[in-house]
């Protein structure tokens, strides 16, 4: 009878709302990163750990709903792919903030550059999921922007790593270099998730429109 009740008055399955919520959290986590880089000593207003936990919870709910719903607004595997990419993005940015704190790394111009690019990427992803339902074409424009930003992040990543390798002479410098390399590697991983996200948006667009 559960089925009958749902048929007559279905619960609204808000997959797109949940995805937008995940997009909002992607922006929040990048803001936490930015805030930390601005003033490393101060405890950040946006608690990165809390943002990451909330985002995880949203994804758990989304997956649960997906497993409980037969008719979905988009192909179920596409919804899952978008959600997973956003979640991984958030996880990698969170890892970056954590590592900066644990390694006690001072902000560098490169790191500020990364955070600027990541912020643009997060807001493009958030806009893409917001437009997905009604304006697929606009969503694709945002996805294209995500891909452009990923190229810029990878360029900056290579430049940064090259600099790290060439400016290392003493052992303490080597240790600092390894720390920094670890952090930028995770930033690059976050950007890769952005590409996966953008590809999925384009797949959906090809299928639906």
């Amino acid at each position, binding site marked *: 009878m559960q089925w009958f009740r749902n*048929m007559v008055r279905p619960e609204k399955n808000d997959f797109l709302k949940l995805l937008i919520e995940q997009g909002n959290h992607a922006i929040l986590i990048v803001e936490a990163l930015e805030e930390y880089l601005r003033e490393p000593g101060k405890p950040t207003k946006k608690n990165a750990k809390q943002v990451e936990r909330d985002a995880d919870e949203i994804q758990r709910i989304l997956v649960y709903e997906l497993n409980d719903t037969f*008719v979905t607004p988009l192909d179920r595997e596409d919804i899952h792919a978008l959600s997973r990419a956003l979640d991984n993005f958030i996880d990698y940015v969170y890892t970056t903030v954590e590592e900066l704190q644990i390694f006690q790394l001072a902000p560098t111009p490169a790191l500020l550059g990364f955070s600027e690019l990541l912020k643009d990427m997060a807001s493009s992803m958030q806009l893409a999921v917001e437009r997905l339902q009604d304006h697929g074409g606009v969503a694709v424009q945002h996805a294209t922007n995500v891909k452009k930003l990923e190229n810029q992040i990878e360029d900056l990543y290579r430049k940064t790593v090259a600099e790290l390798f060439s400016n290392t002479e003493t052992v303490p410098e080597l240790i600092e270099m390894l720390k920094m390399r670890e952090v930028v590697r995770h930033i690059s991983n976050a950007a890769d998730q952005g590409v996966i996200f953008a590809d999925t948006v384009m797949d959906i667009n090809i299928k639906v429109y």
Partner: protein
Amino acid sequence: MSIEFIVILITALVFDFLNGFHDSSNIVATPIASRALSPRAVLWLAAIAHFIGPFLFGTAVAKTIGEEIVNPNAITLNVVLAAMLSAVLWNLITWYLGIPSSSSHALIGGLIGAVIVSVGVEALKPQGLIVVTVALFASPVLGLFAGYLLMKATLFLARGASPRINWFFKRIQIFSAFGLALSHGANDAQKTMGIITMALVIEGVATEFIVPIWVTALSAGMIAIGTATGGWRLIRTLGWRIYQIRPIHGFVSQFAGAGVILGAALFGGPVSTTQVMSSAIMGAGSAERITKVRWTVGREMLIAWILTIPAAALMAALLYWPIQFLF
């Protein structure tokens, strides 16, 4: 018994085998592709239904073919042999290409070609030809619409459901496949039974047109064996090449197809099981998303369907002379 009778008996049984092999793929493709049952189980189920069917009911197809398309007096053993050989060839060609096409249409085409060569155009019955032609063009349209509408309705009704509903969509296909196979077996084995019995009458072995039990058993057996063999090229086309069939598509296309076939039977209009089932699959897919269906596959099928009758007629006409020469 003459040599020609034995040749006809063998050809009829080969045609019967191919009929099961070829046309039952429409019925078994969706339960197989949506994993309602294992392929082996589905094929066994369909084979059993095809074996039972001929004993139960059905004369419609045989009657249409034997009386309504051409003047019954024009049907000689040579004509029947040419028609069946061309139908066998056409079925083999379409099987090789992986395109589901109607065995009944192939036989009708063969009959038309052979009769034109042996007696002349005047032996054709225009009314019967019109009925067949209308059915030829109506079947795909009806299947497409029925599949489309039932899919829309099902999606609407299932909007509050959890994916556990797939269990229902899978299980119900066991019954629908059995029912469809039963009706298909009943109608299609009739053709073979009719042909063999007619040959018996012409040979003077039987004095009147009553199908002996051994003929029914033989026809039912051959169509069942053909079904159990499984026309995998065709099953792949229907289950995977149009689009990946999932349980809901299987459920929708089986019930939409059965609805059209039953409805047509009630109103006396013959439709092709093959065409209805294949187009119902396309209809179900396009209701979900029009681009889900690979329409190039649909176009291939449509071309084959339109070509079936002329091509079979041409082959039968060409086969008629060597047959005339031999017997």
